[in-house]
């Protein structure tokens, strides 16, 4: 990705995931703000864990055959399970709050521990679904589909409208229950509304983003905002804005540095808490420092140098682009899985070497050739000129030597796959470098580094996922 602004382009491959992150960042801090003010922040920790247990329970029931397998996907089923567990837990905790004895914090801590234990047990009971459940519990926002975004927008839109419409009632019932009773005749309805909105957003949020991210979005932005805002309205607005900013920056950093999104957001959220605490002290001294800090953030955000575009085909013509074999420094073989069972049997019997299978490097080189030709370049393969180069995977530094000794003219394209991993069919984590250099002097004409998770939601198998990822990668590299 070449810059921060690109994330806002609807044609950007991960745009749905950006939207999902921002929705979570905008709405969850509002719910969390009320929980923090009511000193019920542990509820924000416990309920996501309970929702996770509900998710694991649902998949266990599915494995037992009690629940049907839905074609629409696991998320729909997971939402039902996590919603049911969340609301039952809230009902039980509410009942114990009214009728039980002992510390509320103790009950929440026990519920948290129980939910964590149940989640693990349900996963152990259902080893067949372990990967899927863990994937959902990790909350891969990055792998969200358009349908998921619609569900999220609907649910969180409803929650947001509820919070805005009833903001006065929710504030009064949270801050001064006696006055709420005198003016409105009771607080039970408003408590119920707040807990309903909390449960709904937590249950759906956990499915989409995982317990860790949900809890951190609920707690960290309000904590950061609380110290630097005067007035409830400003506090809520600021918490929501910090949440959205955390989501955007977290996404950017995650994609740029290839870090997992959840922990990146949590780390950034914590950083905002510390920055806010620092700002609070600075505000007491001078407002100029705030302006300076804002300017630094602004400059940092806008100073990403746009990458040089790919030279026009006419600029090189009639000289060719020499497309070298793609280098693999990932440490993995990156062979494409065989879809032919007979081939697999032959491999097992030792009649056929697995080395004969095509690799991601082959697929990428073929796709690169096609793309360059489509753009009007004359593409040549080095082995056509010198058969000794059929297996060579040189890098850009070798360009002048190759040109001098091999007599290559025009330009040379070197590609290096530094990382190519997947832990589900939902996306491929890739780190690929492409360099186009002038053959005569090795001058760099164009380069791209793609280092991020490439979503492959529609892939039926690993081979298709790899193929989709290659296409997505080249689409981004050459855009």
């Amino acid at each position, binding site marked *: 990705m070449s810059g921060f602004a690109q994330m806002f382009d609807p044609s950007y491959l991960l745009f749905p995931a950006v939207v999902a992150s921002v929705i979570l960042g905008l709405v969850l801090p509002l719910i969390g703000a009320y929980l*923090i*003010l009511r000193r019920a922040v542990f509820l924000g920790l416990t309920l996501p864990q309970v929702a996770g247990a509900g998710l694991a329970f649902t998949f266990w029931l599915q494995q037992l055959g009690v629940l049907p397998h839905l074609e629409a996907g696991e998320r729909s089923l997971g939402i039902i399970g996590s919603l049911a567990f969340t609301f039952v837990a809230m009902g039980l905790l509410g009942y114990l709050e009214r009728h039980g004895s002992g510390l509320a914090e103790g009950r929440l801590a026990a519920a948290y521990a129980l939910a964590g234990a149940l989640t693990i047990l349900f996963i152990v009971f259902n080893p067949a679904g372990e990967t899927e459940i863990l994937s959902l519990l990790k909350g891969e926002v990055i792998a969200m589909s358009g349908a998921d975004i619609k569900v999220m927008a609907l649910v969180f839109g409803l929650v947001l409208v509820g919070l805005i419409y009833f903001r*006065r009632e929710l*504030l009064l019932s949270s*801050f001064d229950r006696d006055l*709420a009773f005198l003016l*409105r005749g009771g607080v039970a309805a408003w408590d119920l509304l707040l807990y309903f909105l909390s449960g709904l957003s937590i249950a759906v949020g956990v499915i989409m983003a995982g317990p860790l991210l949900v809890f951190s979005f609920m707690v960290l932005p309000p904590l950061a905002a609380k110290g630097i805002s*005067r007035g*409830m309205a400003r506090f809520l607005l600021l918490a929501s804005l910090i949440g959205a900013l955390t989501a955007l920056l977290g996404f950017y950093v995650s994609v740029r540095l290839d870090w997992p999104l959840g922990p990146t957001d949590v780390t950034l959220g914590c950083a905002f808490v510390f920055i806010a605490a620092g700002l609070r002290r600075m505000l007491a001294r001078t407002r100029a420092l705030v302006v300076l800090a804002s300017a630094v953030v602004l400059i940092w955000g806008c100073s990403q140098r746009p990458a040089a575009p790919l030279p026009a085909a006419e600029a090189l013509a009639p000289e060719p682009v020499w497309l070298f074999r793609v280098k693999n420094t990932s440490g993995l073989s990156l062979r494409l899985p065989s879809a032919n069972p007979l081939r697999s049997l032959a491999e097992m019997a030792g009649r056929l070497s697995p080395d004969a299978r095509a690799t991601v490097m082959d697929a990428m080189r073929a796709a690169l050739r096609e793309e360059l030709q489509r753009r009007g370049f004359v593409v040549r393969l080095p082995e056509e000129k010198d058969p000794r180069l059929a297996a060579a995977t040189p890098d850009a530094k070798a360009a002048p030597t190759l040109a001098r000794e091999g007599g290559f003219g025009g330009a040379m394209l070197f590609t290096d796959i530094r990382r190519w991993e997947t832990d589900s069919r939902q996306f491929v984590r890739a780190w690929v470098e492409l360099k186009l250099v002038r053959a005569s002097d090795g001058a760099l004409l164009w380069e791209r580094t793609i280092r991020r998770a490439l979503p492959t939601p529609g892939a039926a198998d690993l081979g298709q996922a790899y193929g989709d990822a290659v296409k997505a990668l080249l689409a981004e590299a050459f855009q």
Partner: protein
Amino acid sequence: MNDNLPLVSLKDATLGYNSDPVVRGVSLEIYPGDFIGLAGANGSGKTTLLRTILGLLPPLGGSVERGCPLADFGYVPQSAALDPNFPLSVEEIVEMGAFGRVRPYHFWPEREKRRVRAVLEQVGLRHLLHRSFFSLSGGQKQRVLIARALMVEPKILILDEPLSGVDPESQKAITDLLVRLNRDQGLAVFFSSHDLVLVRALSDKILRVDRGRIWWERNGGAQ
């Protein structure tokens, strides 16, 4: 409203929590224009009586009748009872007094905005409109809470220890304000305090509560 009808009437009421009586045999009536002080030591049952009058606690026995809806009661709690965790401004605190009139889906009416400023003017704190409520002094907080109670447009003000933890200067400002509200607007005032001297100096009628008993005191003697 007929001035001869009581705003609140308790008849032989037993007050307490969870079937544990705190004060027994409470009979009293509060009329428009009354200025009543409730004096008693800490833990004697003053707050229990106030909460019963406000309908926040059901009586364990006897009866409690009100001559006006609960929304016409202006309640001023002790500022220490409010949670400082909330980052509320003075304006937002005072606005709460009108939450009973403004429906959830309505924008904040201009009339209420003007009224917020007017009641703050009345308590002499108009200049603190945008200040953080919990950064104010004890006396200022108490006056803001009185402003919030006035936002209700009440017929009676019920104040729980309004002078507790307040410096002498603020005490004078608050008592002057209460007297003015009672005298100029005919607002009934019912307040509690552990300071009997202050209650005697301020009130037309004095209620004493001690060890589960309650009685009227006038001109230094029991009624």
